[in-house]
C-alpha cells in the first residue's frame, strides 16, 4: 500500500544511501559543504519519515505501507517491507537522532569528514532496513550491514583504545548472529517441509507452529543474537568499551538505535516466531534483566568516567525494556516499547552533553569537574532536564515508560516488580550523585573557570530533545495511540498461539505463565494483513 503512488517506505529506507552516494561525489577538501549537505540529507530524511507517522492508521493492527517484490524468487526470498505501530516509532526515532548526530559532529569530527558522513548515512539505511524488514533474509542482510559502518565509526574516529573496542563490537555481534542465521535457515526448511511453502516471509513463518523442542533451540539462537545486541547481562561486556571509545555521535546512535535493534528483534522475531519457547523463557529472561538492572546501576555508581557511567546506565535501562516485554501484558509491553524511545532520547542526550563538555575540556573524569553550573549555566540546565528524564521524574518521558513497565511486571510477577523497582531508586542515586559532583560545589580546577557555555549550534541540537522529553512525558497518548493496537495484537497473537500449542497435552503448566488471552480492542483487525 502506498498513499501517494510512491513506495514511501522504500524511499525512507534508501534515501540516506542515495545521499551517501551523492556525498561520495563531492570534493573531499570542502568539509564545510560536506557537513551541510549531510545535514540537509538527514533533515530531508526526517521530513519524509514524518508522513509515515501522519498517515499511519492507528486503528489498524497489521503491517502498513507494505511493499513486496520477489528478490531471490526460487528461494522464497522477497524484498518485503512494512511497519506496524512499534517499528513506526523506532523508525522515527532513527531519523530524528541521525539529524542530531550529524549536528553534534560538526566540530568533533576533524578528519575524514566525508567518509564519516557517508558511514553515518549508510548506517541510517541499515538501521531503518532492520526495522522495516518483513523477510528474514532481508532482515539478516540489513542486520549485518549495520555492523560495517559502526565498526568503522568506532575504529576510525574513536578514542585511544578504539581498535580493541571496534573489533570487540564486531566480533561479539557477529558471533551471536551467525547462529541466528543457521536458525533462520532451519526454520525455512522445517516450515517448508511442514507446509509445502518454502518462504522467508516473516508473517507466514509466524504460523509455522514448530514442535516445542525445536522452538527452544531456535529461540535460543535468536535470543542469543539479540541478547548480545541489547545487551543483556552477561553479554554486555562489549558495550562499555564500544561506548567509551566511539565518537560522541557514534555513542548516541549506538545507544539510541543499535541497542534497540536487539530489543526490537525480540518483539518482532524471537517472541512471535517461537511463542512457546518465549513464554517458557520468561523466568530466565526476567532474571537476567533484573540482574542487568541492578548490576548496571551499581556499576554506574562506581564509575569515575562520565561516559562509562552513561554506558552502564544503558545496561540498566535496557534491563527495564526486557523486563517489561517479558511481562507479556499490555502495560508491560507498551512500557517496554515506550522505554526504547525514551532511552534513545535521554541517553542519546546524555552522550551528547558528555561529548560537549569533552570537546571543551578533553577529559571525562568526574573528578576533573565540579561547580560547572556556575560557569556553564545553560549547559547545566539542559543536563538537569536530561538527568531528570533519565531517572524517570514524573512529567518526563522516562516516568511513563518505567511506570508502565513496573505496573506490568507487578501484574505478572510481584517479586520481579519489587526487584525492578529498586533499579529506579538506584538510578536516582547514581545520576543525581554524578550531577552533584559535576555541577555543584566549588570549582576545584582552574581550567574549568574558562569554559565557554553552549553555542547556538549546540543549543539547537539539544532543544528538540528537551521538547521530546516533555512532550513524551506529558502527552504520551499522542504516541500510544499509534502503537496501542499493534501491541495488543502482538500479545493476542502470541498468547493464542501459545495456548493452542499447550492445549493438547492438557494442563502441564503450573500456572506461572500469564496466559490469559486479552483480545485486542478492535476485533476485526486481528488478522495480519494489509490495512488499507
Amino acid at each position, binding site marked *: 500500500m502506498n498513499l501517494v503512488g510512491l513506495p514511501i517506505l522504500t524511499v525512507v529506507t534508501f534515501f540516506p544511501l542515495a545521499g551517501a552516494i551523492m556525498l561520495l561525489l563531492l570534493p573531499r577538501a570542502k568539509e564545510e559543504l560536506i557537513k551541510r549537505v549531510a545535514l540537509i540529507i538527514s533533515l530531508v530524511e526526517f521530513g519524509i519519515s514524518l508522513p509515515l507517522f501522519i498517515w499511519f492508521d492507528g486503528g489498524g493492527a497489521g503491517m502498513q505501507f507494505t511493499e513486496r517484490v520477489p*528478490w*531471490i*524468487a*526460487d*528461494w522464497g526470498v522477497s524484498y518485503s517491507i512494512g511497519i506496524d505501530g512499534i517499528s513506526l516509532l523506532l523508525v522515527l526515532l532513527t531519523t530524528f537522532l541521525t539529524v542530531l548526530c550529524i549536528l553534534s559532529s560538526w566540530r568533533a569530527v576533524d578528519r*575524514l569528514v566525508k567518509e564519516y558522513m557517508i558511514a553515518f548515512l549508510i548506517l541510517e539505511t541499515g538501521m531503518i532496513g532492520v526495522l522495516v524488514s518483513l523477510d528474514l*533474509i532481508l532482515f*539478516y*542482510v540489513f542486520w*549485518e*550491514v549495520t*555492523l*560495517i559502518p559502526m*565498526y*568503522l565509526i568506532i*575504529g*576510525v574516529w574513536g578514542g585511544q583504545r*578504539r*581498535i580493541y573496542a*571496534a*573489533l570487540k563490537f*564486531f*566480533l561479539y555481534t*557477529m*558471533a551471536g548472529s*551467525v*547462529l541466528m*542465521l*543457521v536458525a533462520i*535457515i*532451519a526454520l*525455512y*526448511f522445517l516450515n517448508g517441509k511442514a507446509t509445502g511453502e518454502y518462504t522467508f516471509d516473516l508473517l507466514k513463518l509466524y504460523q509455522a507452529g514448530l514442535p516445542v523442542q525445536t522452538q527452544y533451540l531456535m529461540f535460543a539462537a535468536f535470543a542469543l543474537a539479540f541478547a548480545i545486541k541489547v545487551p543483556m547481562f552477561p553479554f554486555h561486556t562489549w558495550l562499555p568499551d564500544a561506548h567509551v571509545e566511539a565518537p560522541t555521535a557514534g555513542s548516541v546512535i549506538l545507544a539510541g538505535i543499535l541497542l534497540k535493534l536487539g530489543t526490537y528483534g525480540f518483539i518482532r522475531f524471537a517472541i512471535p516466531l517461537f511463542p512457546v519457547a518465549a513464554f517458557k523463557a520468561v523466568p530466565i529472561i526476567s532474571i537476567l534483566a533484573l540482574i542487568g538492572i541492578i548490576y548496571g546501576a551499581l556499576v554506574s555508581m562506581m564509575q569515575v568516567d562520565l561516559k562509562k557511567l552513561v554506558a552502564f546506565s544503558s545496561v540498566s535501562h535496557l534491563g527495564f525494556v526486557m523486563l517489561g516485554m517479558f511481562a507479556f501484558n499490555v502495560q508491560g509491553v507498551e512500557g517496554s516499547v515506550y522505554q526504547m524511545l525514551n532511552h534513545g532520547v535521554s541517553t542519546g542526550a546524555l552522550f551528547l552533553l558528555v561529548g560537549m563538555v569533552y570537546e571543551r575540556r578533553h577529559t571525562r573524569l568526574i573528578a576533573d569537574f565540579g561547580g560547572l553550573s556556575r560557569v556553564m549555566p545553560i549547559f547545566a540546565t539542559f543536563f538537569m532536564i536530561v538527568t531528570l528524564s533519565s531517572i524517570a521524574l514524573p512529567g518526563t518521558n522516562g516516568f511513563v515508560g518505567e511506570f508502565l513497565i513496573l505496573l506490568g511486571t507487578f501484574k505478572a510477577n510481584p517479586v520481579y516488580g519489587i526487584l525492578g523497582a529498586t533499579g529506579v531508586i538506584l538510578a536516582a542515586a547514581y545520576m543525581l550523585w554524578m550531577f552533584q559532583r559535576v555541577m555543584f560545589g566549588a570549582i576545584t580546577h582552574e581550567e574549568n573557570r574558562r569554559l565557554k557555555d553552549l553555542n547556538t549550534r549546540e543549543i539547537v541540537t539539544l532543544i528538540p530533545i528537551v521538547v521530546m522529553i516533555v512532550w513524551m512525558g506529558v502527552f504520551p497518548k499522542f504516541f500510544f495511540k499509534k502503537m496501542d493496537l499493534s501491541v495488543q495484537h502482538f500479545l493476542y497473537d502470541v498468547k493464542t498461539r501459545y495456548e493452542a500449542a499447550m492445549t493438547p497435552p492438557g494442563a502441564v503448566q503450573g500456572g506461572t505463565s500469564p496466559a490469559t488471552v486479552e483480545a485486542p480492542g478492535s476485533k476485526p483487525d486481528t488478522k495480519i494483513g494489509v490495512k488499507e
Partner: protein
Amino acid sequence: MDLFHVQFAAADLLVIAPEMVLTGFALLILLMSVFIRTEQRSFLGYTAVVGALAALASLYWGIGTETSAFGNMVRIDPLSFFFKMMIAIICLLTVLVSLGYAKREGIDFGEYYVLVLFATVGMMLMASAANLLIIFLGLEVMSISIYILAGIMRDDTRSVEAAFKYFLLGAFASAFLLYGIALVYAATGTLDLAGMSRVLTEKSWISGLPLLIIGAALLIVGFGFKIALVPFHMWTPDVYEGAPTSITAFMATGVKAAGFAAFVRVFFSALPALQPYLKEIMWILAVATMTVGNIIALSQSNIKRMLAYSSIAHAGYILVAFTAGNELGIASILFYLLAYVFMNIGAFTVVILLGKKGKENTLISDYAGIGYHHPLLAIAMAIFMFSLAGIPPTAGFMAKFYVFSAAVKANYYWLAIIGVLNSAVAAYYYLRVLVYIYFREPERNLAIGGFSPAAVLAIIISVWGVLNMGILPSAFLALARQSIKFLL
C-alpha cells in the same frame, strides 16, 4: 582395449574448442617470443589476453549442449561448461593482472604467459574429462606448468623453494591419484566415468567394494592435495607465499576450481554409490579443513600466508556443501567457487598493486594507513575482505548462505553450526587487514609505482562480480542449478 583405437569426427573438435584455442595461442606466443625484441615484450601479454578472451568466446559452442567426444574421453555438458567458463574467467583475470606485475618483476618473458595458458588447458581438461585418465592428464598438464610458474622468479630463493616444495609434494599426490585410479579400475573394470556408474548400479559389485573404497580414498588424497584440504595442506602457505603473487592468485582459484570440478565429477557422477561410505570422512575433512585453516590464519602477519590459510578454510566451507551432497549442495559448490574467484583474485590484485619492484609489501602492517593514501584501492580491499568474511551484501555472504542452507537441508545441523562459528572466527583476521588499512596512522608512504590499468580493470571486474553475486544472486544460482541438473 579401445582406449587405443580412438575414433573422432571433426565435430569432436568443437567440444574442446577452448582448449584448442588456448593451445594455439600458447604456441603462437612461444613463437613470437623468439622473434620479439625485449622492449616489445608487452605484446606477448596482450596476445595472452586475446587468447583468454578467444577461449571464453569459443565456449559459445558449448552452450546447452551435452555430448561426448573422442570415444567418450571428454564431454561437454552444463557442468563442464560452467567450470570451463569459470576457468576461462580466472585465466583472463590472471593474465590481466600479470601484464603490469610480470613486467615489474622482470618475468614477462614468453614462457610465463605460455605456461599460464597451458595450465589453463590442463584445468579445462580436468573439467571436461569423461575418463579418469583424462583427469590425470589434465592434472599433470596443469601441475607441471604451475610448478614452473611458482619458481619462475629464479633469483628469488623463496620462489625456488616454493616451486621445489610444490613439485615434490605434488609428485607424491599425483602418485596417490594414479594409484587410486588403478584400484578403481581394478574394482570396476573401467576408466570411463559413465561406465563406472553403470557398473556400480548394474551388477553385484559388492565383492569389489573394499578395493573401490581404498581407491576412492586415494583419489580423495590426490584431489585433497590439489585443493588443499587438511591434512594435505602443508605445502599451501609456503608455496603461496613464495610464488609470484599473480601465480598465487591463479593457483588459489584455478587449481581449486579444476580440482573441485574433477572431484564433483568423480564422486557425484561416477561413484554416487559410494556416498554412504564417504559421508563421515567428508564430514571430518570439512570440519578439520575449516577449523585448522581459520585458526592458523588468525596468527599470520604476512598477507599472502593469511590468504593461503584462508583459502584452506574456504575449501573447507565448500566441503560442507560437498558433504551435504544434495542438489542444493552441489549447486552451491559452483556458486561458492565463482564467488571465491572474484573475491580472491581481487584481493591478490590489491596486494600486487600495493607492492613495487624489490619491495612487495606483503606484511599486513605495511598496509597501515592505505585508506588515507589510496582511498579507492582501500575500498576495493574492504569489499573483498568483507566478502571473504561472509558479510552481506557481498558474494561471500550469499555463497556461505547457500552452503550452510545445503547442510541444514541435509540435516547436518552440527556441520552448519561449526561452519558459521568458523566464519565468525574468520571475521577477525579479515577485519585485521582493515584495521591496518583504516584505523592505523600511516607510518610511511608506501611510495608504490603507478597502477597498471589492466590490473585496475581486473579489480573493477572483481568488485562487480562480488557485489552482483551478493545483491542479485538469483541468476547465478539458477545457472549453477542448471549446470548440475543432469547429474541427479
